């Protein structure tokens, strides 16, 4: 089924489908961010693919990459019990991506959570505001530039903790 998925997506989005990888635990496709809504819509609504369940949606941050912020979607086709992982990466100066709340109601809070922690803006989201953190927080805490421990601390030497 993997090649079928790439075939259908490639036919429709051609150059925006970068990479299809089935070496890891799940079939993974990386797509360019402007087409993400179209890809998810195709995966959900194409009767041959029929991925009707959005399992998770989460953010990820690779500060050293050209496109540092990412969104990862896990979709599930119940009938054939097939899972697929869609990844897309965004620039950090304008991390805007279109929402999938119109396709999956469940994406509402997942996108709010991703916005809350990574600052990724989901265009067209009905209520994009912080969900787990306080409203007046002025940064996005899951980004890698915010270390978990205070970096100015001197009483803990990382060398002794294997870090």
């Amino acid at each position, binding site marked *: 089924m993997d090649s079928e998925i790439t075939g259908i997506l490639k036919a429709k989005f051609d150059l925006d489908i970068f990479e299809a990888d089935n070496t*890891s*635990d*799940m079939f*993974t496709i990386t797509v360019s961010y402007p087409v993400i809504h179209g890809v998810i819509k195709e995966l959900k609504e194409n009767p041959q693919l029929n991925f*009707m*369940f*959005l*399992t*998770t949606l*989460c953010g*990820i*941050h690779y500060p050293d990459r050209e496109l540092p912020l990412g969104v*990862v979607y*896990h979709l599930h086709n*119940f009938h054939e*019990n097939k*899972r697929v*992982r869609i990844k897309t990466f965004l620039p950090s100066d304008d991390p805007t991506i279109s929402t999938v709340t119109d396709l*999956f*109601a*469940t994406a*509402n*809070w*997942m996108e709010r*959570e991703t916005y809350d*922690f990574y600052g990724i803006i989901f265009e067209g989201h009905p209520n994009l505001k912080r*969900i*787990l*953190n*306080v409203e007046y927080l002025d940064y996005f*805490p*899951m980004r890698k530039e915010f270390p*978990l*421990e205070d970096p100015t601390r001197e009483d803990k030497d990382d060398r002794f*903790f*294997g*870090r």
Partner: protein
Amino acid sequence: MSEEKTYTTLNLGPIHPATHGIFQNVLTIDGEKIVNTEQTIGYIHRAFEKIAERRPYYQIATLTDRLNYCSAPINNIGWQMTVEKLLGIKTNKKIDYMRIILMELARITDHLICNSVIGVDSGALTGFVYVFQERERVYEIYEEVCGARLTTNMGRIGGFERDFTSTAIRKIKEFLERMPKVLREFEKLLLRNRIFMDRTMGVGPISAEKAINYGFTGPNIRAAGVDFDIRVMNPYSSYDDFQFELPLGTNGDTYDRFCVRQEEIWQSLKLIRNALDNLPEGKHFMEVPAFCLPPKEYVYSKMEALIWHFKIVMGEIEVPQGEVYHSVEGANGELGFYLISDGGRTPYRLHFRRPCFIYYQALPEMIRGGVLSDAILTMSSMNVIAGELDG
């Protein structure tokens, strides 16, 4: 005078005895009818995903305890299986069956709490107190297996720290003997009780399509009539060795959710009995030097063992690069772990798919048009656990 309708705003929570945790619901009500509600969550957010990025793998198990604290062993074992999947470890049947026993015990306690609380919220306190006695007995089994009760940190990556003792097996057997009797009595109290049925049937219903669209999993989606269970779809821990039935509801209302959970307890009992009867001989841990502590007598007498012990405890073990998604059937839905490792001693990114965070957002739709007392029942029947909701 204008005929314009005015609504009342009622603030339910964050601290309210009927919400079983810290949730806030700002309800817009018309008399007693609910027009809309807005949920505020995050009161006990502890940033587990961030903390996990700085913790060695074995220390993350203690974070998972605190997600769904009503069934902590499922979370612990789910996490351990995720790391095993990353490392490519295949556990033996003995470990698998031990895990099934513990996970099903956890499922029973979770369902018992949820179902008895539905009773409490509809005015029947007796059942709650009665089944809590049995929950206590399961906690005694946990205590015998791992030493802890609520936040268990049970098992290790690659197996268990110790085998079931004869006391543990005796306690499981005693529990299996007592439980059906108690459960039957509990069902007698509620299952065909006219008042209970009137209070729960047709309350907070959700259709199958909507349940899928809202990302429902676990007993909640099965109550809506979708036969989705990770234990069957992607069998882990040798669940495919056993026969069990998936109870399904039709309306997805509070009564269906109650019945589905009730039947699942029976199925879990059957699973535990089968797993215990067929528990094979063998080692209770796999040879995973990276995570299994060397035997204590060697640590005290041999230098290498001491160094190795120290290395593991200080979390200096490097894990290979990789990316895995592993999910288990938690007591309230698909509990997923999305783990990205860049090869260090800690995960690069760990995302928990927390089932109640995902399905709690459907609450406004489920309670709209109902009355306030039904909203409370709907909420408790969805089995929303504050720790898991806020992560």
